[in-house]
């Protein structure tokens, strides 16, 4: 059992959890993730390790409630426990001093971007960060990102905060501006966003690393469910990734594969709604 030490609500659908998992915390590096299973009948899902605290033996996870498992997790509180946590999984992000880099986070992807941004800054890079969200609510970790960036750009689809538009707008500006001298781009967010970023950076010939959120089961290379196509070759996102060269990723294929279980996900969601509704009825 992995106790939840604290919980903080970052946005209506996004929560931050500090979880006691000392062994994972000790070994994790930027870019690593864990697989968790919340309850006995639950699914195994991957979540990025956003931070760790060696002295406290904790790891930090930031979760967006989008389906049954993430909603269940987000309904939990300090004092509750998560049944299973295994990690750190995946290859750590290759961190080097490129000179100047851009870090692009979309939605909850910003949470996954934050440890990498911090590490890139630590390695001596000049860091330009771009945080995108559909609306003001979904722009998260602005403070944290500012603390490890030289400059931060914020975009929202509806213009409710920062500049109206999508993350590729400021990125294009940065790439066009020779002064910024961007040598590498790191992007994490929804697949269409990472695809758009990769298409853009390809034009400029700037190396781009993206983190692929394939559907996973074991996270140890045992099932092949997380397979993705990189430069025409099959790779397992959990052990060969999760990060890959954005210019080589077959995004359309992954977008399709991630829709494999839409009907099931809808059903699970409805069931969760019913369960919570009935538990409310029982409650006095």
């Amino acid at each position, binding site marked *: 059992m992995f106790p939840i030490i604290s919980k903080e609500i970052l946005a209506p659908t996004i929560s931050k959890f500090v979880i006691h998992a000392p*062994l*994972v915390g000790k*070994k994790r590096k930027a870019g690593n993730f864990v697989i968790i*299973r919340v309850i006995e*009948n*639950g*699914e*195994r899902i991957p979540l990025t390790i956003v931070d760790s605290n060696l002295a406290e033996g904790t790891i930090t996870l930031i979760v967006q409630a989008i389906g*049954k*498992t993430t909603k269940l997790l987000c309904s939990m509180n300090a004092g509750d426990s998560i*049944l*299973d*946590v*295994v*990690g*750190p*999984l995946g290859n750590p992000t290759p961190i080097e001093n490129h000179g100047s880099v851009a870090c692009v986070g979309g939605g909850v992807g910003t949470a996954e971007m934050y440890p990498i941004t911090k590490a890139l800054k630590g390695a001596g890079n000049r860091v330009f960060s771009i945080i995108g969200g559909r609306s003001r609510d979904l722009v998260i970790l602005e403070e944290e990102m500012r603390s490890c960036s030289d400059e931060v750009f914020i975009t929202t689809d509806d213009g409710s905060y920062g500049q109206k538009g999508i993350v590729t707008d400021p990125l294009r500006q940065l790439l066009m501006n020779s002064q910024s001298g961007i040598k590498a781009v790191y992007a994490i967010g929804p697949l269409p966003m990472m695809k758009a970023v990769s298409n853009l950076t390809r034009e400029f010939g700037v190396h781009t690393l993206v983190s692929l959120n394939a559907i996973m*089961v*074991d996270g*140890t*290379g*045992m*099932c*092949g*469910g997380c*397979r993705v*196509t990189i430069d025409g070759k*099959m790779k*397992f996102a959990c*052990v060969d990734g999760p990060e890959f060269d954005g210019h080589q990723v*077959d995004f359309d*294929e992954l977008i*399709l*594969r991630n*829709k*494999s*279980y839409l009907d*099931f*996900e809808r*059903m*699970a969601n409805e*069931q969760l709604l019913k369960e919570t509704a009935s538990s409310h009825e029982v409650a006095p």
Partner: protein
Amino acid sequence: MTVLNPLKPSERMKIPRQHSIEQPASDRVQGFTEVSFGVDEERAMIEATRCLECKNAVCVEGCPVGIDIRSFIQLILQKDYAGAVNKIREANYLPAICGRVCPQEEQCEAVCTLGKKHMPVAIGKLERFVADYEMEHNLFTPPVITERRDQKVAIVGSGPAGLTCAAELAKMGYRVTVFEALHAVGGVLRYGIPEFRLPRKILDLETDRIRGLGVEIQTNFLVGRTATIDEFFEEWGFSAVFLGTGAGTPNFMGIPGESLPGVYSANEFLTRVNLMKANKFPNFDTPIRMGSNVAVIGGGNTAMDAVRTAKRLGAERAILVYRRSRQEMPARQEEIHHAEEEGIELMLLTNPTRILGNENHTVTGMECQRMELGEPDESGRRKPVAVKGSEFVIPVQIVIEAVGQQPNPIIQATTPGLKTGKRGVVETNEKQGTSRPGVFAGGDLARGGATVILAMRDGKQAAVAIHEYIQSKVQDEGNKAIVSTGAEVVGT
């Protein structure tokens, strides 16, 4: 002993081999309950009477772990079923499992004297009978551990190789911890072999008994990532490590259409059902895609389990597509027979070339080629050759590939100096030692895909070697200590 069995050998030979009692195929495909109920006491007794009690019991040599088969059968004749299972347990700590999944027809029963002219003794069924009898009648008595030792041994992977090694070392008194990446124990026994061949109740009981020996099992621990082998030695204080991480990484055929949703590796398909209980969705959260027609590619145990599982998930047509002929199928005959009873279609001498999808990107069919058998290849089996222009399409919505697996590379990549051979198989010597002192390996990791009993054999062998290794180190240190204290004595 002849007192117990008054029949003359010629009379024993006349008794027909006893068969298991099996659930009718039409019933068993409705769910995941066990196919075979085994033999009852009466049949077991008749079967035991068939044994010739050979002076040269060749069956024992046929058993990879050397179970004293003749003696355990004699104990059955004395109705000492608990004694019989304990006799087995001296050589094999997982009798209820082996009695169910071992290919006895290739091992003990293949060499049984009676089998030369008649049907061999149904050794596997007797093994299962005594193990089940013990379970039903609560007769289990844990072995007494006479000596406690201080040294700690780490076992990586909780498949049959790891569990056996752990049990053997615990019995010798070592402090043993098993580290398992998944949230549940058992390796392929848990996530690969389906309930209808190996009920979870039995697996749970057998693993509880291993815990009962004082073995600690730590799940959710991916060695190489959560901690490395080097850290096990340097920081965790382990004296030796056994690697039993199996051959879990699935191969894919590399044909077009493999990335379509609805195409699974057998590992994923079976894991979703066996480990995650996707067959019970939505009561369990993990989903699985199904269709009315399912094709499984391959001819081994894994393919057989996948196709029979698909049938149980409701497939009207569950088709096994194999490129060679029936004779070359590596699956156990018994399983092929059971599959056919359950209405599984065998499409032999057929090789898939392409998986087809529609505009919604769901699988609609699989294009295949007819094959012919040509010259024997390096495995001695006749090599299948494609018949030109023989392409045809099978209409299916789900394709499952069971075309082999390889060792998971995480340990090899994170353990400097660990030598591997082809396909990432860890190289071992005859004592299961690896190129790293103190690191031993066995099971599928060292064999690249074999059987439960061979994994167990390796685990046992390694336990003996680990004991020798630790004791020789203890002795060395003892000698050094004597030398140093000796020096002090001289000094004072």
